[in-house]
């Protein structure tokens, strides 16, 4: 009997990590097309998760559990997919600026991006400007994210942008900033591309900006 991809999507929505992983393997063993498994099983499930989150029918822990189920399936599929099909939705480097120790908001943004299929590098907190510059050079991400929760550390985000300009790599990345005291106006003032108010809307904006 052929593996039911609709059921796989349902299991993913229900956050059944192991079941999704096993079912993906079964489908592969049956010789099903990997791209079809990805699109009609995993991605179809994640799309519903996204819709239900917006409709307040699913909540953060459930969304993150579904994302984990998604990536357990992806682990099985990746070796079989063509490079273009297995490519991440984009790559994202994120960190909290110097002098700022607020951690969890930035981590949630990172997790939600990961859940949306981005390749994410989480640099940590209290980071020197140079760490951001080096990370952009090293990882060449589509998107660089900076978080600041203090009015006193917000200006550091502008400093990073200037340093990227000086290094001649500002235009290689889109830059997103966020955190409680950050505003759309401030983001524009310092020359960032995107302002993220919360994890969920940041992912939407990030996807749009990266255009994948």
């Amino acid at each position, binding site marked *: 009997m052929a593996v039911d991809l609709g059921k796989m999507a349902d299991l993913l929505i229900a956050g059944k990590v192991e079941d999704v992983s096993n079912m993906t393997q079964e489908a592969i063993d049956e010789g099903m097309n990997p791209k079809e498994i990805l699109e009609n099983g995993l991605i179809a499930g994640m799309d519903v998760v996204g819709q239900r989150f917006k409709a307040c029918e699913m909540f953060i822990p459930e969304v993150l559990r579904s994302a984990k189920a998604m990536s357990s399936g992806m682990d099985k599929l990746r070796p079989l997919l063509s490079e273009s099909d297995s490519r991440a939705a984009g790559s994202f480097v994120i960190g909290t600026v110097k*002098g700022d120790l607020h951690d*969890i908001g930035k981590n*949630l943004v990172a997790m939600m991006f990961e859940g949306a299929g981005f390749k994410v590098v989480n640099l940590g907190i209290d980071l020197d400007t140079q760490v951001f510059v080096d990370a952009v050079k090293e990882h060449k991400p589509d998107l660089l994210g900076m978080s600041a929760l203090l009015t006193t*550390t917000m200006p550091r985000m502008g400093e990073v942008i200037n340093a990227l300009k000086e290094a001649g790599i500002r235009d290689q990345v889109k830059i997103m900033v966020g955190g409680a*005291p950050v505003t759309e106006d401030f983001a524009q003032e310092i020359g960032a591309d995107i302002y993220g108010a*919360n994890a969920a809307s940041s992912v939407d904006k990030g996807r749009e900006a990266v255009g994948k």
Partner: protein
Amino acid sequence: MESIMPDMQPMNQTVQETPQFRVLTEDQIEQIYFAALDVLERVGSRVHEDEALELFRNSNEAVVSDDKRVRVPASLVERALKSYPRKITLQGRNGKRSVALQKDHVYFGTGSDLPFTYDRKTGERRRTTYKDVTDAARIVDALPNFDFFMSHGIVSDVPNPQTYDRHQFMAMLEGCTKPMVVTSVDGEGLEDLWKMACLFQGGEEEFRLSPMFVAYIEPISPLTNDRSAVEKLLFAAEKGIPAMYTPCPSSGATAPATIAGMLVQSLAETLLAAVMCYLKKPGMPLIMGGVTTVMDMRTTTYSYGAPEMSLASAANTDISKWLNLLMFSTGGCSDSKWLDEQAAIESTLSLLTAFLSGANLVHDVGYIDSGVNASLESLVMNDEIIGMVRQVGKGIRTDEEGLALKVINEAGPGGEFVTRDHTYEHWRDWFLPRFMDRSDWETWNSEGCKTMSDRVNEETQRILDTYEPQPIDDATRKGLKEIIDAAEKRHSQ
């Protein structure tokens, strides 16, 4: 006065002065406490500060691993816990010893560092300024039910982020004479604020006897202690400055999703600080804290209005009393973006719960927008709520005067009480509303159909227009300026 009651000396009576409220039994508190000790023995807490690591190492009891994790045996924790004072009396810059922190004595005050303010003229949200902090200070000085002041807002119009705390303290002092709780950038910042306070108090020794402020310090949940926080804590220990080390865990995000689990973790964080201060200098006035709440799983907001915050905070207060520590708690705050029905509901619930729990310093009164936006009107509204809450706390007297048999007899069936002496003497015991409207519809209508927010707004404006706090004398002002200028100079290089 002759008793008209047949027997006023019954046996085996229990009366209570006030309502009684507790969330946890002693057995439950012990379960949480032993679990926290277990966390300190097995998991430990990370400390990013060298002097503190050295203190732990030299104790020959705590174990410090290469990754800066400190694990502490129960015996050391229990010795440390015995060293903390059960009473601290705070005084204002006017010399009034108005806040006597001791078991079950409850005081209310603002929160600190709100980055945004609604401009009262334009209604627009903008960054908070020095003047906003001074205005909040004046409001709190004028309002009868506020006992202490935290900055409410953060001064953003200052030369250097590294020295903002000195200017902020100055703005607070300009407007308010009541005792304070202060936030600072680092150890050096705290030292400057303490020097500024000592100018009012006539020196270090006087400060120690009856301090003008408590230092607000926080670990990073889960189980992490950053350099600047530890620096401040050690400085406070050295100088005998009262300090709270208040975990701010969000259940489900930076702490377990069960309230008991969150309490275990934050108690472990508190106990580590208790040991650290003890090793530095036994007996410093350490105050237990905790803004224990949940992260909203739809929005990711750190909630200041959740009922879980009230419940967890009250439980934390039960624990603090069992440990013989004073307690810094939370109430009168809201997630609402605007001073509206939601703000009133959330503020009331948390104020009542915190009051009944007997927490000593209840802070964050007046916060809206989850600790991001400042509202002076919210301070005024909460003043009324605190009045109501305190009234509930008065309890009911059941002595002869309270039972009022005499006056019931006088009035008799079909009589009235308005003209009786008993009424004349006792109606003043009641809460007297200032902003709650109890008028009839005609009066309300003819006086302009004012809503609660209209009345609160008018009072806010009235205070801002008319209230002048006791001024700071010139000599002290000069001393304050010198300290601030010196800090600016050090940091401009």
